[in-house]
Structures are given as C-alpha cells and as structure tokens.
C-alpha cells in the first residue's frame, strides 16, 4: 500500500500512535447487567405519558372504590334538588331526579371499569387458550381453529353485540358476554403468532434435543416470551371495551336504572345539555381520561417491551 493512501487531508501518518489493546477495558461491562423485566420497567418509567396514565388510573380506581363508600349521599338517593349546578355540597351538581352527580360518576366508574377489565380478562383466557392450542398443535387442528376465527372476525362486531343485547335482558352479565363474544379473536391471533415464531426458534429445538418436556418448554420459553405481547394487547383491550360499553349504554342497551355507567350518564346528560351541561361534562371527561390513560399505558408498555427501541 502506498504511503499516500494513508494520508487524511494534510495529516501526516506519523501524527498517529499505536495505543495497543487494553485487555481489562475491552472486557469491562459498560453497565450493570439488568434482567429483561427490570429494563422494561426502567424504560417504561422514563415514558412521561405512560406514568401519567398510571397515576390517573390509580386515582380513578381509588375514587371509584372510596367515594361511593364515604359520600354522605348514595347514588340512587333523590335529594329533592333538581338539576342544581355544581356547588360546595354537590361538587358535580345534581341530575333531573335530584341525585348527586359526583357519587353517580364514581359509582359509574365502578361499573365501567369492572366491565372493561372483566371483558379483557375473558378475552385473555379464551384468546390465550385458543391461540396457544392452535399454535402448538399445528396441522389440521390449527387450520380448522384459525378458519373459525377468520369467519367469526368477518362478522361485523358491533352489529352482533347490538343484536345480542336486544335479546338478552340488559344487565352486567349480558354486556360482558356481548363484549367478549368476538373480542377474543384478536388475542388468539396474537398468541398464535407468538407461539409459532417461538416454536421454530433454534433455542427451543436445542432445549428439545436436551430432553426438555413440553411443559418445561411452555413454562420456561413460551410464556415469558409471549407475555409482553399478551400484556400489551390486554391493556389496549380495556379502553376499547370501556368505549364499546359506553357506546352501547348510550344507545340504551346498557345496565338498567338506577345503576348508571358512564355511557348512560353521558346519554342522559346529552339530552339535558342546554339546561344542565355539567351532567354531560363530568362523565364525558372521565370516560375520555380513562380511555386515554389506558391507551397511554398500553403504548408505553409496547415501546418498553420492544427490544428494537433499546437505547
């Protein structure tokens, strides 16, 4: 190689010196070694929006648990003050039957959150079972199970839910059934995808050749690897269930009076909008805040779990 090629602009090669290999430095760990979940937690806690979401959800949950217990009024008590604007004694005002809106909002939060979380848990159970059986079994069984899911997911979701709710008497249980009847398909597909991709990894093959049992594989490799995707899907299912519930309540297909979910309250509030706008504003604000918070947490989790976004 000619000497000229080694020149960088007008820097002469003799300006450089050989440092040599420093054995102890190259072998040094750049940072403390952290486990995967610790790192996920670290990355999650740096996401301001997600932390805000967590805090908002904790506050909403605490208020939903304690306000109906400690409030001087009950959610169905008619106080004789009709459509009163927010004041010191009734923070969110009263409705057309003279009920305290503050208590009703938190009673409604109980119902909306309960429906949202239960629907998500049912989706989780059915979806994980269906998806993992389908993915693990493979072959013809996998084919049949996935075709069933395909056809079911082609059925327009909300139409089915509406018709189902028309038939079942309105109430908590019918609402949950209606929400989870097609909701599990998404989860099943995601779990199946995870199972398939993990099943064909070389380390699984290695574990198999070393004599690991199927149960050991599920426990040690499948579950920890699929957990992230399942967790994210579940956090993102809750807000959509809450949204659907309030949508259906708004159409008059929700839990019957005097219990009120946020959707029912917003629907009644909308009718009284010109005379008592606070009856729409408060439930509307808390539906939106809850949906936002769950979405923020879900997005934050997804980013934190994605190894590609590692810094």
């Amino acid at each position, binding site marked *: 190689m000619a000497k000229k090629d080694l020149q960088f602009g007008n820097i002469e090669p003799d300006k450089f010196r050989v440092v040599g290999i420093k054995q102890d430095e190259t072998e040094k760990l750049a940072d403390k070694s952290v486990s995967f979940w610790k790192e996920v937690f670290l990355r999650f806690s740096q996401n301001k929006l997600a932390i805000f979401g967590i805090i908002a959800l904790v506050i909403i949950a605490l208020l939903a648990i304690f306000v109906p217990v400690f409030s001087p009024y009950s959610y169905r008590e008619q106080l004789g003050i009709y459509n009163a604007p927010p004041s010191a004694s009734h923070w969110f005002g009263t409705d057309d039957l003279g009920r305290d809106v503050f208590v009703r909002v938190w009673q409604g939060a109980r119902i909306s959150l309960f429906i949202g979380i239960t629907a998500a848990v049912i989706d989780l159970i059915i979806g994980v079972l269906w998806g993992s059986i389908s993915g693990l079994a493979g072959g013809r069984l996998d084919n049949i199970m996935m075709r069933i899911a395909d056809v079911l997911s082609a059925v327009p979701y909300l139409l089915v839910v509406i018709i189902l709710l028309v038939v079942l008497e309105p109430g908590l249980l019918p609402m949950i059934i209606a929400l989870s009847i097609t909701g599990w398909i998404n989860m099943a597909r995601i779990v199946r995808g995870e199972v398939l991709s993990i099943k064909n990894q070389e380390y699984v093959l290695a574990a198999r050749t070393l004599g690991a049992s199927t149960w050991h594989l599920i426990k040690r490799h499948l579950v920890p690897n699929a957990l992230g995707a399942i967790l994210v899907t579940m956090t993102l299912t809750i807000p959509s269930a809450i949204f659907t519930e309030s*949508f259906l309540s708004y159409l008059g297909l929700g839990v019957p009076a005097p219990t009120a979910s946020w959707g029912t309250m917003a629907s009644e509030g909308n009718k009284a909008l010109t005379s008592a706008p606070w009856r729409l504003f408060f439930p509307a604000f808390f539906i939106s805040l809850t949906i936002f918070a769950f979405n923020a947490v879900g997005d934050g989790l997804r980013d934190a779990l994605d190894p590609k976004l590692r810094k």
Partner: protein
Amino acid sequence: MLRYIFKRLVYILIALFIIITATFFLMKLAPGSPFASERDFPPQIEEQLNAKYGLDNPWYIQYKDYLVDTVSFDFGESMKYKGRSTNDIISESFPISLTLGIEAMILSIGLGIFLGVVAALYHNKFPDYLASTIAVLGISVPSFILAGLMQYFLAFKLDLFPVSGWKGFNYSILPALAIAITHAGFIAKLTRSSMLEQANSDYVKMARSKGLGKWSVVIRHSLRNALMPVITYLGPLTAGVVTGSFIIEQIFAIPGLGRHFVTSITNRDYTVIMGTTVFYSIILLFAVLVVDILYSVIDPRIKLKGAKK
C-alpha cells in the same frame, strides 16, 4: 389473485349465513313482540297479524321462508310502520347515511394525513406536539361525547352551525366531524410513524440533497410510501363510520339508516332489524374485501395468501 378473491367470497358467504341464522334465532328468543304497543287489540286480530307475517308457522318453516326472502333480497313489510317495506326504508334512508359517511371518510382521511405529515415534518417540535395532542384527544374522546360537546358549544352557544336536522350541507358538518375525528386521530398516528420511518430512508435523503424542498419531497416521494399502513386502516374505518352513524344520526336527528336501525331495535321491528343487519353486513364484508384487494394492487410486494405464485 382470482383464487384469493374466490376464497374470500366463500368466507363472506359463510359469515353472512352465520349472521342471518344468528339474527333469526336471536329474534325468536327475544322477549317482547312488535305488536306489543297495540295490546288493546282483541286476540283474533293479533292472531291475524301473526298469520299475516307468518309468525304462527313452526320455526323451521319461518326459517326457510326467511332464508328464501333474504336470498331474493326481499325483507318484507315493516311490522311497525304499516305499508312500508324494509326495502323502501333502506332505499330512502341509506343515501343520507351514505352522504354523511363519505363526508366523514374524506374528512378523517384528509385531516388525519395532514396532521400526521405536519407532526412528522416537525418531529419533536411544537407543531408535532400540537398535532399529536389533537390526535390523542381525538382517539380518547368518544364520538358521541364529541358530538354533544360540539352541539353545545359550536351550535347552541356560538350559533355557528344548526343544532340538528338534515336540510343541507351546513347540517352535515358537525355530524361528519363527530364521526371523523376519532379515525382522523388513528390515521394521524399511523401516518406520523410511517413518515418518520421514510424520513430515514435513502431515497428521501437523496431527494433532499438534490435540493428539493421539504414539502415537495413529502408530496412527490415519501407520502406515497407512507400511506401504506393508512390503506389497511380503510377497512376498520368503513366499519367505524357505519357504526358511528348509529349514534351520531340519533344525536343530530338525521333521518338516515343508522337511526332507523336503532329505532327498529327498540321497536322490536323484526323485519327491519333483519333487513338492515343483512344490508350492513354485506356492505362491511365487501368493504374489507375491496380494501384487501386494493392493498395488493397498490403495493406489488404484497402477495395475497392463496394467490398463485
């Protein structure tokens, strides 16, 4: 390609059959009767009414009649509004819903892409935060709440738009916006992230170093590629616009098909419920198919499952 379309058509037929059968049996199980509000009738008249609609036949005859009627797209007369057939109701009110739906779709796509592009171009600067906040708010606030709030502030307080009704273009702006904003939020999010992905690609750097302006790179190069994920969203968008219309038409008192569907449910008007359900299902199933085909036509890299290699 043809094989793929055929396969999908078979799925659609199976799905339709399930919907039709499920609706039929659910309606049979449902409490309440379409003639409930006319209870003063002597029992003979109710018997006659039942005979007229074939409700006195055993269920398998009713089911067979119903299947035959559905295949020939004849859903019969409304049980609530005498002398009006379900087909009349659909053909009368669907154009209104279609106008509203198309307006909402154009709005959500236009607004969503605009917000997404602005957010990506000014990544991590003020316009990005503003656009992302609007998108997040749009996703978090349910359409019916937005509708109520807009009705209160824009129509009732500020008197900028009519509060409700359907008498011209002015009347359609608020309802279309209410349906569109949630979807605009999703589209903005999709556009932003795929635009950011494109911004790091070689061809965009090349175009920039050639001296093309920021916006002309967007319009002539990166946006075309960035819109791929947005196209996949068109299927859910159609479904969302349709279901959104159920509530929005109710709130704004628009005489569209969505409102008829909801009233037919509360009226237990079986013939109209079944007719509209089947009608909606056909539209939605085909919309999803069209989107999938469109997607493969636009992006040559995508090979449809089941297509010949």
